[in-house]
């Protein structure tokens, strides 16, 4: 009994002691929580008590003096040129900027083809693109950049298209100059088994525009990575992206797909050999075949037969259309055709190609269009792509299309992008920023000579959160001499100047007669500028779209001299334009159509239920299009316009629609924008001439062939004032005049 009590007591004491012990422990933890904010527990990097006594990492005077001023800059530049050559080339050391500072600016020269020279189809396309670009010159003296006539695309010695003795031949070129200012295009380098980056000749100080470039060999800011493209890749225009609709949820039948070769040995086999692991036969389809090469059966392993069977069950094109993500693993080389294929198919590429310098990585933000995987983490790919949210899938997919159409859909675009990147480096202070390269409509349509300021372009208002300016410049194209004060142009001047948004009027005087004296023109509340656009030889119709420096506003109202409009019509159209600053907004609608009999594009001025052209005789558009018209379009098209004195308005519509991919906008009811010609008129208007109409038919075809596709798009609506012809008091209506038209 006694002993038991003793033990009970002792036990109780022990319990209490333990309790207290733990409670104490709890206290300690609580204490820890309280002091947590001071970072005692969670943060082992202490708050040193003598923090304020710590020395600065550098004395301020030391920072400002920075160890003196260094070597003589002139000497340093000279010594650099000697040290940083070949594999360490940079624009500063391996490029002769002086060649590009001449009058002619950025010009590209192509070595003439030698007799019996075989040039592959792809290289031929590249050369054609250069020749047709606005930078081409046939005079090597004014050239800034040189392109070889020798086909350097395929440098695989086993290939049939391999050109031998390149080294000796280029050394013989007097202009070679160790490759300075040369650009060398290449798609395939190295050969079995290692597929090195070696081109088989010394590129020296030439810029490499090469597919499958490895980051280690890539000379940053100097070389350019281009995509691998097939010989069927179109010269111009090119197919649009395949994305036509954005269904929500955006998932397609398959989540992830791959169909391609499995390498059993050699370079690249690590990744290709593992791809079958992620195949689940349901939403992830990863198919590999061993059946390639001559002696595949020699290397064949246990998987081969089963894999080959599974491989045949799926069609590549079908998978491409129906998969959300597409695996783009490296092959023997880092780049592959499937990269461009999946880009076009809006199948978001999942890259497994470690060390690949992505195409045009200088300027393109790839992480907005592809998923960059890591070959080492193949097994994480399924969970990574599953975790991509709806918004991101939609955005990634749209960006694949944007990039495809802006830079990759044709050889022309690939070559031009290459040239533009080099040009941006040469004139770095007049170059595009990354935003311009990555936003619609893409860098090729942004000419930095016009401006380097984003707000000066019609495309970026929304992104910048701003609206176009409140004023416009009226540009009137005058071709007939001034004989009476009652001429249509006089009426037009009155109407335009009455608009409160009009800040200036420019008359482009394009008549044989000299422009009349200033006093002949009526007094105006806005400045009136008369530009004498006469040339000695002939009247230049395309001059109406010259980027006149006098145009200070973003909006241009383009008018013919005999246009009939009301002030309120002008005001309303201007309001609409401010909502659609990247499009042509105007009155006279026209349409194009496909003539199945003639197998050609046709043009019609008939009233129809839809339109695809708004004539520039009465239309608003952004002044940047003047610049594009004069500098982006090839001179051949402008010559055509000048020769026929026709079609300039159609060409402008082609241009704007090719930039926006959208139709122009017709406003309000007016269609007839000119008074019917009076018989007394000394000269009949050109557009009543039937020949004039035939010319326009031909123009549509010619333009479409230059663009490589038909950029015009039809629209079925017009924009009217909100209360247009509504049954409500006229007093309420802001644009009541429009109903009288």
């Amino acid at each position, binding site marked *: 009994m006694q002993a038991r009590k003793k033990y009970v007591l002792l036990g109780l004491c022990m319990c*209490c002691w333990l309790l207290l012990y733990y409670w104490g422990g709890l206290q300690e933890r609580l204490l820890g929580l309280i002091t947590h904010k001071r970072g005692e527990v969670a943060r082992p*990097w202490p708050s040193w008590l003598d923090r304020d006594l710590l020395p600065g990492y*550098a004395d301020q005077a030391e920072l400002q003096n920075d160890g003196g001023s260094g070597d003589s800059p002139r000497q340093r530049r000279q010594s650099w040129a000697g040290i940083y050559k070949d594999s360490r080339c940079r624009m500063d050391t391996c490029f002769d900027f002086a060649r590009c500072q001449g009058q002619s600016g950025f010009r590209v020269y192509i070595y003439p083809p030698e007799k019996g020279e075989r040039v592959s189809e792809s290289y031929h396309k590249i050369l054609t693109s250069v020749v047709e670009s606005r930078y081409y010159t046939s005079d090597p003296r004014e050239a800034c950049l040189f392109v070889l006539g020798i086909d350097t695309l395929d440098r695989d010695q086993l290939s049939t298209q391999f050109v031998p003795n390149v080294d000796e031949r280029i050394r013989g070129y007097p202009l070679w100059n160790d490759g300075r200012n040369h650009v060398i295009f290449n798609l395939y380098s190295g050969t079995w088994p290692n597929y090195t980056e070696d081109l088989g000749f010394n590129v020296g100080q030439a810029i490499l525009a090469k597919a499958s470039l490895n980051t280690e060999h890539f000379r940053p800011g100097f070389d350019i990575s281009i995509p691998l493209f097939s010989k069927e890749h179109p010269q111009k225009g090119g197919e649009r992206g395949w994305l036509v609709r954005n269904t929500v949820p955006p998932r397609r039948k398959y989540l992830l797909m791959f169909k391609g070769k499995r390498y059993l040995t050699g370079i690249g086999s690590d990744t290709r050999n593992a791809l079958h692991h992620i195949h689940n036969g349901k939403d992830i389809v990863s198919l590999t075949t061993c059946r390639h090469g001559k002696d595949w059966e020699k290397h064949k392993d246990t998987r081969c037969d089963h894999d080959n069977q599974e491989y045949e069950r799926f069609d590549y094109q079908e998978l491409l259309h129906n998969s959300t993500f597409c695996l783009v693993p490296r092959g023997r080389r880092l780049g592959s055709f499937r990269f461009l294929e999946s880009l076009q198919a809006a199948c978001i590429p999942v890259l497994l190609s470690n060390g690949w310098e992505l195409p045009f990585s200088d300027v393109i933000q790839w992480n907005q269009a592809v998923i960059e995987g890591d070959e080492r983490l193949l097994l994480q790919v399924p969970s990574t792509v599953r975790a991509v949210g709806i918004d991101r899938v939609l955005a990634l997919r749209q960006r694949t299309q944007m990039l495809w159409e802006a830079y990759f859909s044709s050889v022309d675009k690939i070559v031009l992008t290459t040239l533009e990147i080099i040009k941006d480096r040469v004139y770095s202070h007049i170059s595009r920023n990354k935003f311009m390269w990555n936003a619609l409509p893409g860098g090729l349509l942004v000419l930095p000579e016009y401006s380097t300021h984003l*707000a000066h372009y019609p495309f970026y208002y929304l992104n910048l959160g701003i609206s176009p300016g409140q004023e416009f410049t009226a540009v009137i194209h005058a071709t007939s001499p001034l004989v009476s004060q009652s001429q249509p142009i006089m009426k037009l001047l009155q109407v335009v100047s009455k608009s409160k948004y009009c800040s200036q009027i420019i008359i482009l005087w394009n008549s044989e007669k000299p422009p009349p004296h200033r006093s002949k023109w009526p007094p105006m509340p806005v400045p009136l500028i008369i530009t004498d656009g006469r040339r000695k030889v002939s009247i230049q119709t395309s001059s109406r779209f010259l980027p006149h420096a006098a145009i200070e506003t973003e909006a241009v109202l383009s008018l013919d001299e005999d246009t009939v409009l009301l002030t309120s019509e002008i005001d309303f159209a201007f309001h609409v334009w401010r909502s659609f600053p990247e499009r042509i907004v105007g009155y006279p609608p026209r349409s194009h159509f496909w003539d199945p009999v003639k197998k050609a594009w046709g043009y019609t001025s008939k009233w129809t239920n839809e339109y695809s052209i708004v004539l520039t005789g009465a239309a608003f558009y952004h002044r940047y299009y003047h610049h594009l018209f004069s500098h982006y379009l090839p001179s051949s098209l402008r010559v055509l316009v000048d020769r026929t004195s026709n079609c300039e308005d159609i060409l402008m519509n082609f241009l704007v629609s090719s930039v926006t991919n959208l139709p122009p906008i017709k406003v309000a009811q007016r269609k007839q924008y000119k008074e019917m010609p009076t018989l007394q008129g000394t000269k009949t208007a050109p557009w009543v001439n039937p020949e004039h109409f035939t010319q326009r038919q031909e123009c549509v075809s010619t333009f479409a062939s230059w663009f490589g596709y038909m950029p015009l798009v039809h*629209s079925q609506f017009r924009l009217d004032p909100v209360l247009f012809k509504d049954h409500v008091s006229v007093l309420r209506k802001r644009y009541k005049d429009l109903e009288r038209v």
Partner: protein
Amino acid sequence: MCASVKYGSRGPALIPRMKTKHRIYYITLFSVVLLGLIATGMFQFWPHSIESSAEWSLDRRSVHDAPLVRIPMSSPIPERGDLSCRMHTCFDVYRCGYNPKNKIKVYIYPLQRFVDEVGVPISSTGLSREYNDLLSAISDSDFYTDDVTRACLFIPSTDVLNQNSLRIRETAQALAMLPRWDKGMNHLLFNMLPGGPPDYNTALDVPRDRALLAGGGFSTWTYRQGYDVSIPVYSPLSAEVDLPERQPGPRRYFILSSQTAIHREYRVELERLKEENGEALLLLDKCSNLSQGLASVRKRCYKGQVYDYPQILQESSFCVVLRGARLGQATLSDVLQAGCVPVIMADSYILPFSEVLDWKRASVVIPEEKLPEMYTILKSIPHRQVEEMQRQARWFWEAYFSSMKAIGMTTLQIINDRIYPYAARTYEEWNNPSVVKWSSVNSPLFLPLIPPRSPGFTAVVLTYDRIESLFRVITEISKVSSLAKLLVVWNNQNKSPPEESLWPKVTVPLKVVRTKENKLSNRFFPFDEIETEAVLAIDDDIIMLTSDELQFGYEVWREFPDRLVGYPGRLHLWDHEMGKWKYESEWTNEVSMVLTGAAFYHKYFNYLYTYKMPGDIKNWVDAHMNCEDIAMNFLVANITGKAPIKVTPRKKFKCPECTAIDGLSLDQTHMVERSECINKFASVFGTMPLKVVEHRADPVLYKDDFPEKLKSFPNIGSL
């Protein structure tokens, strides 16, 4: 506490029963135990505070008390940095693993003081204030982990910010002694002043194996693109001087040169420019009459006239940043802080954070050779762009240069973006200042696509119990040729929808969805049954729209797939008297909203409305049983930045937006409520996203003198 009380109540009850001779024994025992208890308790409480107070005392928490580590002479030296290192060759990505948060884990080594065999420290300064700030910031951040086994990135506590204070060989040995060094794999070193006289290398000279280097002043030849990170040279001046952001406006000087260590050749050229352009240029230098020290750091002189530095930088549009012996210049940070556009002339220099920052928007980079042309080049930049660049420069400083914390966090984020590229920050996130962020748009449907006509649209009819009217609506809509499917959202839980046989016969599939609660939001739910992109939301009493009008609406939507395309239009107005927004349904010349009682829109917006609606708007709508259409208009306008499109002339809708009973008073309270909605939503969105336009869409030949039968949409606007 609890325990001792319990003991106290039990104890006395036990003791009296015991025999007296044992009592003393037990009392003694008990006292001993109690004493022991108290002592233990005290020990529990006290030692901790004793210990922590000891830690807080000067001698335990000073950097000078960090453990001393002696480096043996023969200790291995790492190899020089491998120039071919890239993330996929020199970085162990397995350490980072798959991580649902997509965040790397960073470990910081505890501070150690390294000395060589004779006891001389490896660094003349030891831990610097800046490096300490940097490490503190990292250890406070989400990146930090104290578990060395889970870490993906390791940061040595050895301060190598300034190479001048280091003993190269010993520092390298110290690095190699770190327990997880492993050839420098996944180790990150921060260095701002690399190289030393006379040739000033552009990267840290300390051999460092494969360690990543966050360096200030990289040249293109030492920078391993995609591996190293180029960081700014921190200017401690920015912590001392408070330069408030300067408002845009003309500045006194056009170009300012404030650096004191400019090479003679350049100074001659700058002076020539000054001669040519006069007052527009200000060419400052050291003050010769001031003694060395802090005073000279904060003053600049021109011909005897003294200027305050860095304040004077705010007086100029452009500020020259020329290379010195090193490429990275602390001046760059001062210049950015002052909101002056840096004119950077340092050939081959890798600009700070150039991997993510678009420097063309905040600076002008001119080749050194072109210094004489600087004035012409800068003059050609449009004025508005200069102001934009000034704002951008200042913003870059605030976000990425202003403190060691900013520099450290940016560096880690860049590395993080490389390891989890699919979760990387976008160009916009890095480069668009916050002002632009809320006003600019971020729609994933940015591509100008005109979807094909063929998939048609799905009509979603919201209904409660007006069956007769519902059936009429269904019959009307079914005449529209592009209708693909009808979806009736049955919002009445108390009543079942009529039997299948009673429904009107339609050629397209008709589905009825019963909802769990009578909520207005139900109409915007992204039902799986909606398989088309286009959705026509329509009330069960909208019987006045003709099939031509509906078909035309669909055609217009195809040209504006990212907008609301609807029939009745409404407007919001600013009420100057009340100082708030007002809702307007009168006949106005403008439109900023379309009612979703009859509107086409993309199904994506259903998804947005249901899952991404900001704030408590969705609940507000369901609670008030009103304004779901206004909320939708806000949502779409906010993400696209575009106005809705009103189609076809106005019709007398049968009070489309009010509840069953008509009446003036009710109408008025309705208007008040709608106005309230607008104000509420504007405050939740933090801005007024709605855009006002003066146009509506009509068919091209609307009201034209043209044979009706040739018109695609003849039956428009008729009642």
